[in-house]
């Protein structure tokens, strides 16, 4: 018997014929007719006109016919709701049938008929079926509750079906449990706040028991549900993990991945010091590798997930590089994913092998794959410094192949290599220039132009090369136009004499002939800069560039943590949160990794704690790339080449245009001409009277009581270098304001007046917040103490050393220059306490290369004392922990320019030295933070 004949094309009047056949008396003919109807329905024809005739066939004892009619009903009931009622009686009757298969069929089908009127009739049969003696009926009824909820949620709640469903979790039959879990999980998704699933240690235990007994699909439902549970402490997490790990050997990849999800999530709660933690890590690798021998579609899903796992816990697969080598017969989507993971796993240890493979791939057929392989070589160079040279030579080999897209891709990555290792591989520029003509893709052209502009001084014919691009300026893409504009301006700044014409040409092309506002704006900015202040133009255009990061396409940590909670699902395949592709509120409850709550230890260990926020809370925002760039800009983007070199000694630097006219204008602007004869009560240096001295102690010494540590005054400007003016001073910070406490002594023979002060630009933008107020002329041998408030809003330039401050002081005699080093702790702001989650996230987020370690010797303090001492200088203890007798303090501080510094201070009782590890996105500050630590702790 073949059914394919029902698919034969139909002729006119077919519906009519079918109608006649459906109403035939002969059972066989009826069945044939229904089959024809279903076949038409499948191919997309509208056979809804036959509704009454088909429904008439429903009352039959032939199960096959019945199933066909049901199938028809499910499809068309919605379009014919009134007629669908006709079927209700049969359903209700079938729900009472002695045959459990028929009861289940009826309840299953009824749930699929999405007509409000029918749902009302469904309630009673469903209630019975939920308590049916046969597990097959119960498991079908459990799913039916989810169906009904989808149609009419209120009805389900009113009828108490949810409670019945909850009871089914304790059913004796594992499949009933699994379906009840699946149904409840789905219903719970649309009620994020409700505690429908009510997971507690008892119910979890039931689920874990059912896990061992139910079908592969049931195991997936249960594991996915378990993943939503947050154990109360690390012990519970471990015991669940122990019971889930056997699933890693299941033949069904989905069971394995769901188990991996539970383990990855609960691992967050385990301390890294636990033996079990290590065991678990080891257990995870083999099943993940085995997933790669599954069918290609599953391999793809597995690889997308492994990509996440490798980013979250690189240690799991770090030794498994080889299994990600691409096989010749892999489908392209598998190849591309493997390549991605290979780059993530590349390290100094395996780089030789990886490079050899990548070179092979670059000769393959698929263009996308080849491009990605070439790009990967570039990424290896940036990631593993030791390999950079080999990568560059490999890329050069590839350029020699002259395969167009290979060459272009290679040039794009070489540009990045130049950025990462400036002044190292410029010898290859000549080779690159040879291929200039073959570049036809905007990205490659832009990269090449960037290289020419950046190294214009080393390329003899740079002007010719750039000029050649200029010819077709308006046909280029914006990317290329912008790059060309900048490159020519760079060239002009480097070789102004020969290229004036060229620069004028490009500026006029960009500003006058272009419709693109971005291009025009950039053109105007350059034009004005060049015409008004070429020095400034140099500072802007030839500024030092921020470093490029090693891992270019890492997933942002909060998203990564969320995606870890979605291992195995579509979200993990798309690498997007469900809200990005799921409509409405369904299934878009934000998930996050559980926080670590230890049962045994009282304090947390920040390193092992999770990076996510506890459920329900908004996760803290980790400084994103943009902020990081901001930090760097604050610190780095000073002009390294403009102006004469800045001396750092305290000798006079008369020639330096440090203050320019600024000082005069400053003095001019502030009229504080004091009568020269006025009495000077402010002879503060000398012990006049105890009362007065106390009074002044109060004003100038408050800092020592409640603010941060203040160093004793030191002589900054000796009298002999400043025509008799001696300046000594120190820096203080109290209640959020920084000041410079100065002591001016007149050791000359004449009266000094008209004091003024100004700072050169410095790393943190320190500047006087008020004029230097010396109210009276300073007589010979007289000393005055002044507290000068400082702000941090001055202009910024990176100094060497970082905390160097160049100061100019003027009086009626001359202008004097000196420089001093300020302790960094005056820059530690009061709100420098980071919360724990944030601390962990940031600590993890900052690359290890940025970590610096220091020894602080002869500091016999205990943790308490150190912590409180540091706290008064705005170094805050975030967490404390005791590991093997050592006290670990986790501390954070924030600088005035927003840079965070994270610290780990290890104090060993009985040992006078302690170890300080600092992590910061701007590692330059570490050394100075260490000095600040040392000063604070020792005083």
């Amino acid at each position, binding site marked *: 018997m*073949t*059914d*394919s004949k029902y*698919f034969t094309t139909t002729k006119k009047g077919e519906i009519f014929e079918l109608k006649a056949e459906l109403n035939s008396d002969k059972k066989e003919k009826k069945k044939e007719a229904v089959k024809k109807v*279903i076949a038409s329905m*499948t*191919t997309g024809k509208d056979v809804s006109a036959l509704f009454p005739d088909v429904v008439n066939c429903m009352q039959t004892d032939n*199960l*096959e016919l019945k*199933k066909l009619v*049901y*199938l028809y009903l499910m499809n068309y009931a919605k379009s014919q709701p009134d007629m669908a009622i006709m079927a209700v009686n049969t359903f209700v009757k079938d729900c009472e049938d002695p*045959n459990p298969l*028929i009861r*289940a069929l009826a309840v*299953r089908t009824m*749930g*699929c008929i999405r007509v409000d009127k029918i749902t009302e009739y469904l309630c009673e049969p469903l209630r019975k079926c939920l308590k049916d003696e046969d*597990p*097959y*009926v119960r*498991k*079908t009824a459990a*799913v039916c509750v*989810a*169906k009904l909820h*989808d149609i009419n949620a209120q009805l389900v709640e009113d009828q108490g079906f949810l409670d019945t469903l909850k009871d089914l979790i304790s059913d004796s039959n594992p*499949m*009933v449990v699994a*379906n009840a879990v699946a149904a409840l999980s789905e219903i719970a998704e649309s009620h994020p706040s409700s505690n429908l699933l009510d997971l507690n240690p008892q119910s979890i235990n039931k689920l874990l028991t059912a896990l*061992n007994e139910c*079908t592969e*699909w049931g195991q997936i*439902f249960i594991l996915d549900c378990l993943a939503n549970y947050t154990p109360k402490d690390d012990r519970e997490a471990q015991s669940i993990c122990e019971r889930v790990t*056997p699933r890693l*050997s*299941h*033949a*069904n990849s*989905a069971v394995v991945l*769901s188990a991996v999800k539970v383990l990855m999530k609960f691992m967050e709660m385990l301390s890294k010091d636990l033996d079990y933690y290590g065991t678990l890590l080891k257990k995870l690798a*083999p099943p993940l590798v*085995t997933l790669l*021998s599954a*069918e290609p579609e599953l391999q793809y*899903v597995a690889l997308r997930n492994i990509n996440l796992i490798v980013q979250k816990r690189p240690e799991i697969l770090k030794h498994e590089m*080889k299994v990600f080598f691409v096989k010749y017969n892999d*489908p*392209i*989507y598998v190849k591309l994913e493997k390549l991605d993971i290979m780059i993530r796993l590349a390290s100094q240890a395996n780089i030789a092998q990886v490079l050899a493979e990548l070179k*092979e791939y670059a000769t393959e057929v698929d263009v996308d794959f080849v491009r990605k392989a070439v790009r990967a070589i570039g990424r290896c160079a940036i990631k593993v410094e030791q390999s950079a040279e080999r990568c560059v030579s490999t890329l050069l080999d590839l350029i020699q192949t002259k395969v167009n897209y290979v060459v272009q891709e290679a040039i794009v990555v070489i540009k990045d290599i130049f950025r990462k290792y400036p002044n190292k591989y410029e010898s290859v520029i000549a080779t690159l220039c040879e291929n200039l003509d073959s570049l036809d893709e905007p990205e490659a052209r832009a990269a090449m132009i960037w290289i020419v502009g950046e190294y214009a001084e080393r390329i003899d014919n740079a002007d010719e090369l750039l000029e050649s691009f200029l010819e077709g300026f308006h046909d280029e893409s914006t990317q290329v136009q912008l790059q060309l504009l900048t490159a020519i301006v760079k060239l002009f700044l480097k070789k102004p004499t020969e290229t004036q014409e060229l620069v004028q040409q490009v500026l006029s092309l960009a500003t006058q002939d272009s419709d693109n506002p971005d291009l025009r704006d950039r053109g105007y900015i350059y034009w004005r800069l060049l015409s008004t202040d070429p020095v400034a133009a140099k500072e802007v255009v030839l500024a030092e560039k921020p470093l490029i990061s090693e891992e270019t396409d890492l997933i942002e940590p909060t998203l990564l943590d969320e995606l870890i909670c*979605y291992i*195995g*699902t*579509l*979200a993990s*395949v798309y690498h997007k949160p469900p809200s990005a*592709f*799921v*409509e409405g509120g369904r299934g878009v409850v934000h998930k996050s990794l559980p926080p670590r709550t230890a049962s045994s230890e009282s304090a947390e260990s920040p390193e092992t704690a999770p990076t996510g926020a506890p459920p329900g809370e908004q996760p803290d925002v980790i400084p994103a790339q943009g902020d990081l760039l901001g930090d760097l800009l604050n610190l780095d983007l000073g002009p390294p080449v403009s102006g004469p070199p800045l001396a750092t000694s305290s000798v006079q630097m008369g020639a330096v245009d440090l203050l320019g006219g600024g000082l005069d204008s400053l003095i001019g602007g502030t009229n504080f001409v004091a009568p020269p004869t006025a009495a000077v009560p402010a002879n503060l240096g000398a012990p006049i009277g105890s009362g007065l001295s106390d009074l002044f102690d109060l004003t100038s010494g408050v800092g020592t009581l409640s603010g941060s540590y203040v160093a004793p005054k030191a002589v900054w400007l000796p009298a002999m270098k400043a025509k008799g003016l001696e300046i000594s001073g120190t820096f203080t910070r109290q209640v959020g304001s920084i000041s410079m406490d100065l002591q001016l002594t007149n050791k000359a023979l004449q009266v000094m007046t008209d004091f003024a002060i100004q700072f050169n630009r410095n790393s943190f933008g320190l500047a006087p917040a008020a004029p230097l107020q010396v109210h009276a002329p300073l007589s010979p041998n007289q000393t005055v103490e002044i507290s000068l408030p400082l702000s941090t809003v001055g202009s910024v330039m990176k100094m060497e050393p970082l905390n160097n401050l160049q100061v100019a002081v003027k009086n009626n005699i001359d202008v004097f220059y000196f420089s001093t080093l300020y302790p960094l702790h005056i820059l530690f702001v009061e709100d420098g306490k980071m919360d724990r989650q944030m601390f962990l996230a940031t600590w993890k987020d900052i690359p290890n290369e940025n970590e610096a370690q220091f020894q602080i010797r002869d500091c016999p303090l205990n943790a308490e004392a150190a912590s409180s001492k540091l706290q008064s200088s705005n170094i805050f203890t975030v967490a404390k922990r005791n590991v093997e007798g050592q006290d670990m303090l986790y501390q954070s501080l924030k600088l005035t320019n927003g840079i965070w510094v994270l610290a780990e201070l290890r104090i060993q009782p009985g040992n006078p030295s302690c170890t300080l590890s600092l992590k910061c996105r701007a590692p330059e500050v570490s050394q100075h933070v260490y000095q600040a630590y040392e000063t604070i702790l020792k005083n």
Partner: protein
Amino acid sequence: MIGGLFIYNHKGEVLISRVYRDDIGRNAVDAFRVNVIHARQQVRSPVTNIARTSFFHVKRSNIWLAAVTKQNVNAAMVFEFLYKMCDVMAAYFGKISEENIKNNFVLIYELLDEILDFGYPQNSETGALKTFITQQGIKSQHQTKEEQSQITSQVTGQIGWRREGIKYRRNELFLDVLESVNLLMSPQGQVLSAHVSGRVVMKSYLSGMPECKFGMNDKIVIEKQGKGTADETSKSGKQSIAIDDCTFHQCVRLSKFDSERSISFIPPDGEFELMRYRTTKDIILPFRVIPLVREVGRTKLEVKVVIKSNFKPSLLAQKIEVRIPTPLNTSGVQVICMKGKAKYKASENAIVWKIKRMAGMKESQINAEIELLPTNDKKKWARPPISMNFEVPFAPSGLKVRYLKVFEPKLNYSDHDVIKWVRYIGRSGIYETRC
């Protein structure tokens, strides 16, 4: 969960369409056809998102199976389900082809109704399904009450893959250890990577509900047992193998394997894959390929390849094929081989050397002179690796079946009455030597 399931022929015509969820409309059927089946480009991903609807597809010959959803479903599960669906259909009507699908569309709808409820996969073991979904219509009317409840308890039960009351006159079982050995070797004979992926396939014809226990020379088990008698450790230690990872059919009690590393199960009736495993250590490489390529001037290559068989002389390898790639500008090839037949296949750019049988510890050689057309192509010939195919009657991983014990307490047959057959087949996976 899965919102709908469609089966298309190669032209994109719908053969089966079953919608489970309201959010999937008829337009989804067309969206997949237009964007995937009729797409000009080669398929770049098995998961496609079109207008917030996700399509998962697998292809069997020229039939497309697509699962559709609008939710964040478990993607691994959807693919596993699609594979399972193919298995079930194949078990019912053989090859998955347009013809067979059209001929069995009523059956397929019936199956889909049973194994996917509201998009949730349900029991999909063919053994169980065949008890109540048959090709000859339903026998429900004639079933007794006991039969019915037996069916339902099997479908929902702990041992959903086996029905009760199976009886054989002769209790028999077959075990096949099927391995594929993969190798990448450098021209100097250094192993760059090698691994064996193996499967243990069992065919059981056993009565009742037999409890089976499978034992092999797993290093961990042997060492555990060997602790008692040091003598035995040294004896069996050599023969044991280290298994990197293994996965099991759902009948195997995983928690027992996790705790005791013992493999115990009640098998499905008939053929099934008991386990899969992977090993990387101490692999017996059945063949060694020694290539020698010499460039004589710019228009000639001399190739000499020696293959050595590396196993017991009493065993015979079969279906040996060595594939020696030749440059694209080859104009002519002369081959001399000691054994078998060798041919230059211009369309495949390779010399294919076939040997029907070869005993262990032997060697054979092929010499070829390849004449090249002079080209001005600067690009060097990439020298693809020499690949090899073969079949040997042993397990290259060294895996040995130590026992398979059968206990059926209720019926009166014992382990000794069961006739057991064990067979080892080692095949080449990707077996390549660079030259």
